[in-house]
């Protein structure tokens, strides 16, 4: 039982990590809590559903197409809604509420198109999983672990090594100085929305292979992503990974003795404890504390 809970925690953690990193990449350049990130995750799952089930595309092709669509959705949200706000240099809270408006709008749009019921991509019969140190792991869960760690490594290399990644770090550290040396902030913001949304979309697609999908799935996901980013240290990418796995494990070990309905409660209790005791998170710098 314990081994199974730990394994479930790691799998949940790897999905949270994808969401949290996508969220952090966007947060680093725009510096607000982008709640609409959660709807990109939902949309990723629904893109995959449409392409695989309705259009009968190959599953690998539909995986990559859905990621591209998710990235395009991210850019579209930024251009349509956040760009006008940036032009007015609106405050963080206004951005946050606008992104919540985007979230509510798109979630209900999805519900209008696909209906409120749960859908599933899985076609064939459910296969029995592999036994591993007293726990059971399915093929799809292995796929989730492999793909998410692969994406994390690629992202890390991109941010650390590539020129665009360096420019992104520069904008995140000091947008004005970055502008002075000739980095176009709008271009960097667009890049961060592409990467962040692609990661959220990938998380949504992966989870759609594992469980059922429904229009409201993005809400809990983005909240977990934000909590993971905060307890890891907001804006820090290794922190987001650490926070995500910590959260996934804490949630799944927490429901050892109580019913699974309390997961959200556990997650937010952890968040509030962190906000009061260590608001800059595991790996965050103390300078962030001044804003809290």
């Amino acid at each position, binding site marked *: 039982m314990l081994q199974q809970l730990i394994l479930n925690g790691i799998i949940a953690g790897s999905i949270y990590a994808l969401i949290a990193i996508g969220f952090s990449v966007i947060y680093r350049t725009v510096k607000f*809590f982008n709640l609409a990130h959660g709807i990109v995750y939902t949309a990723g799952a629904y893109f995959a559903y449409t392409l695989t089930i309705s259009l009968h595309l190959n599953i690998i092709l539909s995986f990559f197409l859905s990621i591209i669509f998710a990235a395009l959705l991210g850019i579209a949200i930024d251009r349509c809604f956040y760009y006008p*706000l940036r032009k007015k240099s609106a405050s*963080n809270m*206004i951005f946050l*509420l606008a992104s919540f408006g*985007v979230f509510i709008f798109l979630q209900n749009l999805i519900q209008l198109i696909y209906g409120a019921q749960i859908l599933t991509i899985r076609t064939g019969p459910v296969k029995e999983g592999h036994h591993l140190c007293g726990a059971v792991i399915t093929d799809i869960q292995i796929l989730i672990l492999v793909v998410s760690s692969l994406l994390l490594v690629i992202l890390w290399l991109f941010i650390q090594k590539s020129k665009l990644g360096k420019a992104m770090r520069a904008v995140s550290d000091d947008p004005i100085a970055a502008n002075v040396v000739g980095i176009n902030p709008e271009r960097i913001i667009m890049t961060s929305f592409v990467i962040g949304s692609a990661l959220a979309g990938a998380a949504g697609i992966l989870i759609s292979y594992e469980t059922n999908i429904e229009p409201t799935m993005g809400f809990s996901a983005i909240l977990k992503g934000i909590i993971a980013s905060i307890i890891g240290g907001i804006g820090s990418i290794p922190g987001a990974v650490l926070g995500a796995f910590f959260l996934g494990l804490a949630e799944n070990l927490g429901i050892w003795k109580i019913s699974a309905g309390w997961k959200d409660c556990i997650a937010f209790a952890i968040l*509030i404890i962190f*906000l*009061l005791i260590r608001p800059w998170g595991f790996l965050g710098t103390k300078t962030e504390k001044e804003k809290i």
Partner: protein
Amino acid sequence: MEYILHILVIACIYIILTLSLNLIVGYTGLPALGHAAFSCIGAYTSSLLALNAGLSPWIGLFTGDCVAAISGIVIGYPAVRLKGDYLALATFGLGVIVYSIAKNWVSLTRGPMGLPGIPGFSVAGFQLSGIWSYLLLVLVFVAITIFIINRIVNSPFGRILRSIREDEIASESLGKDTTRYKLLVFIIGAFFAGIAGSLYSHYITFIDPSSFTLIESITILLMVIFGGMGRISGSIVGAIILVVFPELLRFLGMPSSIAAPMRQMIYGLLLIFLMIKRPQGIMGVYRFK
């Protein structure tokens, strides 16, 4: 006619909620996103006392408010120590925690099955059964709420709240214990939200956790922003318009499976539109900093 009166009763309950949130958000400038949690606590306390202990709804109403006010201390205590986005997120989280307690503590709240058969109010031995009498009762409470909140915001206490909103450091430098004032505002707001929740539960006679979700909190916040931040008349107008307007969708002959998401979509678009074009609302005096 019944239907129109029903909409009016619901609008009045939302006016109480909107006014109490406006005190926290519009007058003190604290972006609280979990207001439905307080009305949830008020509604459940009041209904459980009436159902399990057989107490009069009036006692339930009073106890429900007090429990909601106490929860205002519990929720406000961590929240007021944070700023801006983090305060929003913490109140958000506390809203989720209250919601999941209502949903998962099945032995007490019956969870998603909800509490049916909550008794209505009675005045001097007469059961309030007609919708007219209910409207009258709710209007009395709206009048009391408007009166008290108006007195609060125009008192020296209200002036301190506005000074916290405009410049917290400046009001601290004048010796005001801003944390204490912010906590007090949370308690007052929670108290009135508890009244609204209790009135709602005894009017509908059925409650379940789905009436107190985060979307509900955001709807109340949208009413505050739409009408006008930091203005009482704004809250009244905002609540009435946003309760009545979505009902018009019903007259267009939409089935409820389309009308419900449609209503949420309109709310979402309205929120985006307000944030881009007019973040202080129709007649507001404050926008989020």
